[in-house]
């Protein structure tokens, strides 16, 4: 569904990504892990049209993604839950969700509230006043409002307690099953690999490893570098 082939990108003269090959299939959870500064966030920015590619292509369901504006990429059915959540802090949870459904004018909150029932009682609360975990749930729910075919989540666990992270990650298989593939960028490599079908390890702007998440969990290099084992 999402195909990245030979993509390179960067900011101005600083190249960050080299020759990236990556693929996400329908109803699939794919994790993208790697150390700080490896280019994970930049890769997501390329996929959502914020950063242009200098070479290579990104296609989604056969449509070219690179060259489109951020707004046009949303039209294609790709939703990006950005690092730090970036809720509209002064607006209510309800308004945040409504804004998530801007594309296609989706106003039915029911499906996302079913996924995150905890938000139901928070609908009229100002988003900025919620706890980090609730804000992340709200951000993911907002990202789902446009009924995307692919949702990219950047640093889901940022600033959250492990138990909250587990609670949110547990929802991802339901999201994938309902027809929205998930591309997860995550520092918590163990959690990221357990929930995903496949995974990519990004190191200094290049894909260093890729394969079934199960295999990567037992890979010696991954265990030593990311899981603190070995």
């Amino acid at each position, binding site marked *: 569904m999402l195909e990245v082939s030979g993509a390179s990108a960067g900011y101005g003269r600083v190249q960050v990504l080299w020759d990236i090959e990556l693929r996400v299939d329908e109803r699939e959870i794919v994790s993208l892990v790697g150390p700080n500064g490896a280019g994970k966030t930049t890769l997501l920015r390329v996929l959502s049209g914020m950063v242009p590619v200098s070479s290579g292509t990104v296609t989604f369901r056969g449509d070219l993604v690179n060259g489109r504006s951020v*707004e046009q990429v949303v039209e294609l059915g790709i939703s990006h839950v950005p690092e730090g959540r*970036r809720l509209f802090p*002064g*607006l209510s949870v309800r*308004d945040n969700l409504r804004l998530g459904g801007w594309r296609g004018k989706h106003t039915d909150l029911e499906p996302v509230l079913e996924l995150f029932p905890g938000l139901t009682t928070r609908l009229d609360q100002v988003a900025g006043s919620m706890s980090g975990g609730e804000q992340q749930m709200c951000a993911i729910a907002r990202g789902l409002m446009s009924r995307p075919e692919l949702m990219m989540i950047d640093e889901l666990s940022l600033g959250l307690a492990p138990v909250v992270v587990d609670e949110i990650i547990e929802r991802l298989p339901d999201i994938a099953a309902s027809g929205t593939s998930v591309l997860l960028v995550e520092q918590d490599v163990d959690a990221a690999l357990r929930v995903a079908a496949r995974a990519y390890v990004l190191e200094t702007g290049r894909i260093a490893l890729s394969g079934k998440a199960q295999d990567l969990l037992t890979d010696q290099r991954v265990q030593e570098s990311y899981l603190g084992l070995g």
Partner: protein
Amino acid sequence: MSAFLQATVYGLLQGGLLALVAVGFSLVWGVMNVVNLAHGSFVIMGAYLGWELQVHAGIDPLLGMFAAAAVMFVLGYAIQRWLINLVVNAPIFITLLLTFGLSLLIVQGMNIIFSANYRSISTGYASTSLSMGSVRVPLGRLIAFGIAVLVTVALVALVNRTRIGLAILATGMDRGAARLMGIPARHVYSLTFGLSAALAAIAGTMVGTVDTFSPAAAGSFTLLSFVIAVLGGLGNMYGALLGGLLIGLVESWAGLYLSGTWVNAMAFLVLVVVLVVRPSGLVGRAYYAARVEV
């Protein structure tokens, strides 16, 4: 006592009009972080449009203001879309310079087209007065005040209750996140600026019916807008209304007891006092407190 009452009524009426002058300025500043120094010249343009329509087409300014608003909306949209959007990410000095230049251009243009003479839009009702006991209420100013309040309330309803209004608020809080929702930020910015220009045009037409105007007044309307927007709380429409009323009252009261230049100083004295006590303005800036720049 009756002089004080008279000054109070007059101040409130004038204040409502000032609020209408300032509300668009405050909207643009709050949403886009652009201090539009051409706002006063938009007000004067609106006044001339209303004047032209009345003199050459015989259209009453109460109708003409809608036509003036429509023209200025289109112009404002275009200015934002193809001019200010180019530099909206640049440091605020660049937008200040750009809108200052724009203001000079518009004011000189109006000097050439309309001359620097004072004009006013004369209507039958502007000179009529209602008497309430010992207090005289000029009908023209009462109408202008009513329109100012109605338009401000309508603007608040538009921003808080409609889909596009929500998009304007969201884009103002976090443009990057708004774009990720598929909200076309450039279009939303242009709409906001167009809306602001349309409000300036309505204000200008109303100013024209109750007062004289000339291109040279553009600067003082910009300055007043600035004071009122900061006084009320940036980007807050009710704040602008409150700030306008306060400035109107203070200037009117000051005119009663003080002479000449002191009257002008009082508005700024009030601004300083309010900012010392409440740095975020009368109504605050909670909506935009957590603005994120991308």
